[in-house]
């Protein structure tokens, strides 16, 4: 769930992201864009009908009939040039076999998919930032806009999501000056890893240009100098603050399932069923999403913590928190600076 594509399209614009400025081409491009929007509109309407049929006959009936027709619907969405819708449909098809409580999850996802279709069909009434988010969510390519942001970016995490023949590499960066957290996307196909790789835990001076919308996507511009080790773990929040932040983010992007969050001073609690990251002071905790057995990196997190608070970066979604990187506690309080304790250790958990 958490590692879905969220409608990020592998079709990128030209690297700089400027629309080509030749008038004849511009007219042709406008026509192409209109044709594509019309196709997506057809797809969204068709999908609305599918959802209505589903709820007329009931989720229970759909749960028994398997996911084949969802696969077919997803293919239709690909034909409609709406890969974002296609990805959501595929996930919907997998839900009936996702274990106890699936009808609740299925209804939530149906509601959100319906919300996305509706938003697209009435996009002329949407305010600009939300429109950009909706366009991205249905799977339209976006281009970076506006001025580049030059900052010292700390590499919070880098991981690959395989999807059929294409591997999407996601790199999360946090700007020390701007306070922005952005994600860089790159793609590899034919079994090859994406080209660009940034060292997790390092800081690099670079210019980034953000994409519009609430997706936090950005393009990496020129990099100045070599990456340096980060002086300290990123500053973070408590589990309660993280959830409040997720709630606020849903106001801008109701489909968000991967809110980047740095949790500070949390203690991992191992368990056979579900791990937690707990705030020692308040007893509040975030569950770690998914089955612990599917996340071998969790034991690295447990080992790094040793029962003491650590800083963890990850993605927060409706099913819990997906940890990506952890930092051992900084030795900011010189009082108990241990003999022989090294610098802060950065551990990749993916």
């Amino acid at each position: 769930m958490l590692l879905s594509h969220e409608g990020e399209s592998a079709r990128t614009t030209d690297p700089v992201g400027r629309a080509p400025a030749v008038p004849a081409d511009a007219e042709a491009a406008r026509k192409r864009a209109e044709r594509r929007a019309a196709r997506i509109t057809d797809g969204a309407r068709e999908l609305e009908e599918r959802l209505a049929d589903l709820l007329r006959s009931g989720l229970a009936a759909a749960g028994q009939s398997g996911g084949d027709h969802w696969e077919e619907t997803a293919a239709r969405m690909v034909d409609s040039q709406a890969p974002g819708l296609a990805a959501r449909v595929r996930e919907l098809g997998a839900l009936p076999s996702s274990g106890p409580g699936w009808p609740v999850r299925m209804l939530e996802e149906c509601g959100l998919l319906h919300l996305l279709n509706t938003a697209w069909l009435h996009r002329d009434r949407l305010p600009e930032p939300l429109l950009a988010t909706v366009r991205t969510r249905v799977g339209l390519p976006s281009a970076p806009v506006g001025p580049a942001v030059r900052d010292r970016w700390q590499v919070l995490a880098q991981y690959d999501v395989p999807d059929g023949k294409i591997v999407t590499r996601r790199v999360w960066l946090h700007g020390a000056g701007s306070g922005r957290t952005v994600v860089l996307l790159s793609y590899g196909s034919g079994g090859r890893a994406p080209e660009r790789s940034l060292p997790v835990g390092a800081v690099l001076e670079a210019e980034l240009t953000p994409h519009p919308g609430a997706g936090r996507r950005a393009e990496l511009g020129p990099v100045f100098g070599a990456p340096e080790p980060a002086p300290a773990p990123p500053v973070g929040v408590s589990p309660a603050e993280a959830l409040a932040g997720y709630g606020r983010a849903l106001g801008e992007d109701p489909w968000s399932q991967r809110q980047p969050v740095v949790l500070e001073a949390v203690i991992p609690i191992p368990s056979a069923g579900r791990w937690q990251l707990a705030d020692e002071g308040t007893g509040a905790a975030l569950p770690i999403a998914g089955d612990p057995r599917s996340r071998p990196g969790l034991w690295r997190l447990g080992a790094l913590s040793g029962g003491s608070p650590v800083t963890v970066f990850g993605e927060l979604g409706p099913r819990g928190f997906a940890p990506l990187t952890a930092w051992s506690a900084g030795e900011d309080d010189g009082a108990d600076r241990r003999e022989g304790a090294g610098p802060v250790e950065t551990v990749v958990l993916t």
Partner: protein
Amino acid sequence: MSATNSPTSGPGCPDHDHPRATAPDPTDARHPAGPPPRTEQWTEQWNELVTRALLGTDRRPAHARDGTPWGPTVLLDAAAVHAVRRRAGLCPATAGTLPDRAPEDPRPPLPPAAHRRLAQLLADRTGGSPGGRRGTAPDLTELIPQWLAAANRHGYRAPAALLPPLLDAARARTDLRPHALVFAGPRGRWLAGQNPDWRFALRDGAPQAALRGGPGGGADPDAVHALWEEGLFTERIALLSAVRLRDPDAARDLLAGTWSTERAEDRLMFLDTLRAKLSGADEDFLEEALGDRSRNVRATAAELLSTLPDTAFGRRMAARAVSCVGLDRRCGGLSPNPGGPSLVIEAPYECDAAMQRDGVVAVPPTGKGERSWWFGQLVESTPLAIWSAKLGGRTAREVVGLPVADDWAADLHAAWCRAAVRQRDQEWARALLGVPTAPPSDTTGTDSPAERSKLLATLPREERASWAAEFIASHGLSEAFQLLGVCAVPWAAPLGRAVVDALDIAREAGSYPWSFSGVMGLAERCLDPGEADRLEVLTTTEDEREDASPGAGGYWSEAFQRLVSTLRLRAAMEAELEATGP
């Protein structure tokens, strides 16, 4: 509906993946003015939506207040509002029981290069090289034990993030466990306590606690006794072993206290822990164990007694053994040694109750005669010093050199070999090993590779290496594998040279390298890394001679390349661990 509607979060939470919190966050600024809708109402509505969605609107229609029927679209609208509301209103779960904090580990961290190397060694463990031991790349998994031993010698702390793969490796390979667990240290034990897969690492946990929990960090006698009386078998055996190393007498007293109530198979295992730090003080206890109900316990007690000098048991055995061996001073005749005396053996005719009480097993294994079986057991338990006294003050070498009448030589010498190994008698070990350069026809020494290596293991390390080197120089590698296994690592220069020369000779002789893969593997792990440069010359492929096996030259050069690259890798690993400073 607009997606920007600020979702409302009531006090408490709907029932979903995140367990509900008990109190709303007072700082949450998302409450609209006026009384918020009650959570119960929201939950009720949502549950009703789920029910209707499950059954389908055809079967469970509903109507708005004005009577218009609610179709699926209305249901989807409501579901969208609820989905966003439920997500935006998520509250933290209540934390479960926090784990204890891992104890501090004062050891210094690994140098960065060594840290990276360990990660690589552990990552490679699961990979496995395709096609087995071929190619020129070093076999990294074989180097893990060496790396761990070296890291422990330097006294480094294991990096926390590598503890999981380290414990996984130790779980899969018991030979790694001792070094891996020392290296993993207190945090490794702490982590193993969280994951049932790593339970093996905790077996010595309770004993260690009992032995450190006393005043001033010493043993806590009450805890030790409690654990001995009530612990699980694995805990008890670990406790007994640990106590034995600290205070041999205390361990024996613990065991004596509960001896009569232990099960036979447990008695056998407990008795075995007394091997460590065995001394004359244990004689009475062992003597008593000779009367045990279990035959295996009796045999083990006898074996332990026979390793001690000057015991009543040894004197009883000596009296029996000596009566079986005579010195025939006649010259000529049928004696195999016309010019001198020879030994005449008269094996025992019965295995009486007293012999059985002293651990002699009455029934021989299939294919072995009763009398020679009993005779061998008597001699192997007899203190070797007796023979010199009995045979006119001859040295061990002279005694071993005496001819033996009537084909008894093999039995007698094999029993002496076992006695020399048990009693760790170097003079006798040398005599029985004989001269390493002796031709195979020379029968003075033993000719069993297993016995040779056991005898060799009793000698000092330099002597072991030089004996093995001379043996290989004279006899090649075909019987050298077990001998090499008991030589100290890294091999001394003469031994290393002998092995490499022998490999070179084998190549010249046109055989294939996999006939020597065992020795090759040992050489990769045990040769002094400093030899790498000298070996470089062997990595070239020579022109094939007509009588050579087809392709052998290429395979040899590949094998030597792997040898050289492994040696270089070992040197690099050692240098990485030596590194000081950040």
